[in-house]
């Protein structure tokens, strides 16, 4: 009798587990969700979101065009084709709020969705023939070309649904070459070397201080490359299952400038150092100031956006004037949002190219919606007196068309700048 009761109990247990087995036949694939990323993260080094300008020449800092340092061989142009880039990115993170609350820990504040290190290199060969192993692997030399073109795919995992305001790229190291130190007679003293990927290479590390700190940050307390961030990105990740593209842009391409630092050896001796870094469009590079000459941070801007492939349209912008000699872009921001070219990159932008009737540009991959159209161009540069007429690569000047354009999925909307509500005057 006791045995029979036990057997009945056992049969009941097995029935319950059997029913659990049968209950489980509908709903969302949860395991598959982990190996199928919805996100496709693209990192670009361009102002443009599509069709970037080809590589142009380096701009020349004002310290090399006038003053005591504007002499040969210091002001001999560095060719853009001779500039090598070595960029080591630790990861990309997003956060829902713009600033990390005091006392909160980093792991709960940041969503660490792209934590794989990426190394971008112009070459995989260091000094004395040593190979840069991380540059050799994973197609990292070709990736630099993609970074300055249509972007490269950054490995990422999915993000929880929500709105993210802050997007941050943690740049661990950024090196450019050539970097030449001259003696007091302006004869070449040495070609600077630094360490990248555990090997010695020619070049100067821009990330330890040059691009890391703003010249006004005399205490060097606010790093600007670790991370480089945007705090009002307003990225909305929907709670559905649709694959989407997150595009992160850092404006470096066609923003490079030849700089000089008079006390390049960090002594009081005038031993100039010439190197390539981003333009000093935001605050003048104090080339002869012994305390500030090694600080020119804040000149890199970034932005991020998302779109769902297959649910985008484009805007074709036409105008009768021929393409301008300086770098001129067509840019859009979602209608109603404020555009300040000096604080953030436009939502999307493209280069101006020759076409009927005179110039044209197509901004692609725009989610359906209404957009304000801008034309941005480079007409100014920084010198010791502040902003003056000239070129430094950064399109700080802008015209608002004033006629919003509506984009629908799968279609192209066309705008002739002659029909704008506001006459385009600043970027002719």
């Amino acid at each position, binding site marked *: 009798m006791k045995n029979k009761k036990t057997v009945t109990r056992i049969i009941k*247990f097995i029935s319950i587990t059997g029913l659990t087995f049968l209950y489980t036949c509908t709903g969302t694939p949860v395991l598959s969700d982990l190996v199928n990323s919805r996100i496709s993260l693209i990192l670009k080094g361009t102002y443009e979101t599509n069709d970037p300008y080809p590589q142009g020449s380096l701009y020349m800092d004002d310290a090399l065009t006038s003053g005591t340092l504007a002499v040969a061989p210091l002001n001999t142009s560095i060719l853009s084709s001779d500039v090598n880039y070595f960029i080591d990115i630790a990861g990309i993170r997003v956060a829902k709020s713009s600033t990390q609350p005091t006392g909160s820990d980093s792991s709960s504040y940041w969503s660490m969705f792209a934590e794989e290190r990426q190394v971008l290199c112009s070459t995989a060969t260091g000094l004395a023939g040593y190979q840069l192993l991380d540059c050799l692997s994973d197609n990292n030399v070709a990736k630099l070309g993609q970074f300055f073109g249509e972007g490269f795919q950054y490995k990422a995992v999915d993000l929880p649904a929500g709105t993210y305001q802050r997007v941050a790229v943690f740049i661990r190291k950024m090196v450019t070459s050539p970097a030449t130190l001259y003696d007091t007679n302006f004869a070449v003293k040495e070609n600077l070397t630094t360490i990248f990927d555990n090997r010695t290479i020619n070049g100067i590390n821009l990330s330890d201080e040059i691009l890391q700190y703003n010249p006004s940050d005399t205490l060097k307390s606010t790093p600007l490359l670790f991370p480089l961030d945007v705090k009002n990105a307003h990225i909305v990740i929907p709670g559905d299952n649709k694959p989407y593209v997150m595009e992160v842009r850092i404006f470096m391409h066609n923003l490079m400038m030849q700089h000089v630092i008079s006390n390049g050896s960090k002594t009081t001796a005038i031993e100039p150092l010439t190197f390539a870094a981003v333009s000093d469009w935001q605050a003048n590079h104090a080339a002869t100031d012994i305390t500030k000459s090694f600080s020119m941070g804040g000149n890199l801007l970034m932005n991020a956006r998302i779109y769902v492939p297959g649910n985008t349209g484009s805007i074709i912008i036409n105008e009768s004037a021929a393409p301008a000699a300086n770098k001129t872009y067509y840019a859009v921001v979602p209608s109603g949002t404020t555009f300040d070219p000096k604080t953030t990159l436009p939502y999307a932008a493209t280069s101006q190219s020759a076409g009927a009737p005179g110039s044209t540009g197509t901004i692609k991959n725009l989610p359906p919606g209404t957009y304000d159209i801008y034309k941005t161009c480079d007409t100014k540069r920084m010198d010791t007196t502040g902003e003056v007429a000239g070129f430094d690569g950064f399109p700080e000047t802008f015209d608002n068309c004033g006629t919003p354009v509506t984009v629908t999925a799968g279609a192209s909307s066309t705008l002739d700048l002659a029909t704008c509500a506001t006459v385009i005057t600043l970027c002719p």
Partner: protein
Amino acid sequence: MKKVLLFIIVTIFLPYSSLWAQYELKSWSFQPQAGVWFGPVAAVPGTELSRVLSTYLGGGIFGRANLPSNMFHSEVGASYNVYGRVGQEKLQVSPIYGAIDFKLPIEFALNFYFKGGAGGSYVKNSPENHSNWLPTGFFGFETSFPAGKWVNIGLRADYYLLYEKHLKPPVDNPGMKIINGHFINIGLMLNVNILAD
């Protein structure tokens, strides 16, 4: 040659078969057990999930009673396992299963069990926080030794097949590749004899 072989076989099995006979002669008596386990859990190496989930910890409870045979036992169990805590991605799996255990009929200091069964698993992923119940297949191996009259201490290794291939990709992501989950849980276990004679 044949004779020699026969002699060896008989020599090996003679004492063994007598043990068997002795074992079977024991009258059947109800021997329920209840236990707990905890230990490392991981997606089976080489599977697609093993590339996104790292080894972490799991633990569970189980109850066991012999069927009207001293060799076969029925087992039910439930556990809570977390996979992958290194990056952003994480998977929580809570299987409930029923299984038939085969106890190797040898008299030795250690008991050996081979198990097979089925059930359902509640799964929840991060960061998306999607959850579902999935049909689950279960195979296990266990070895334990009695530490006194009441307690057994042992080691168990459980394999779970979480079957997901019957599900369709979501309508808004028809390209999603559907996979099954393969997990291996290894645990130190402690169980007690509820009705020790």
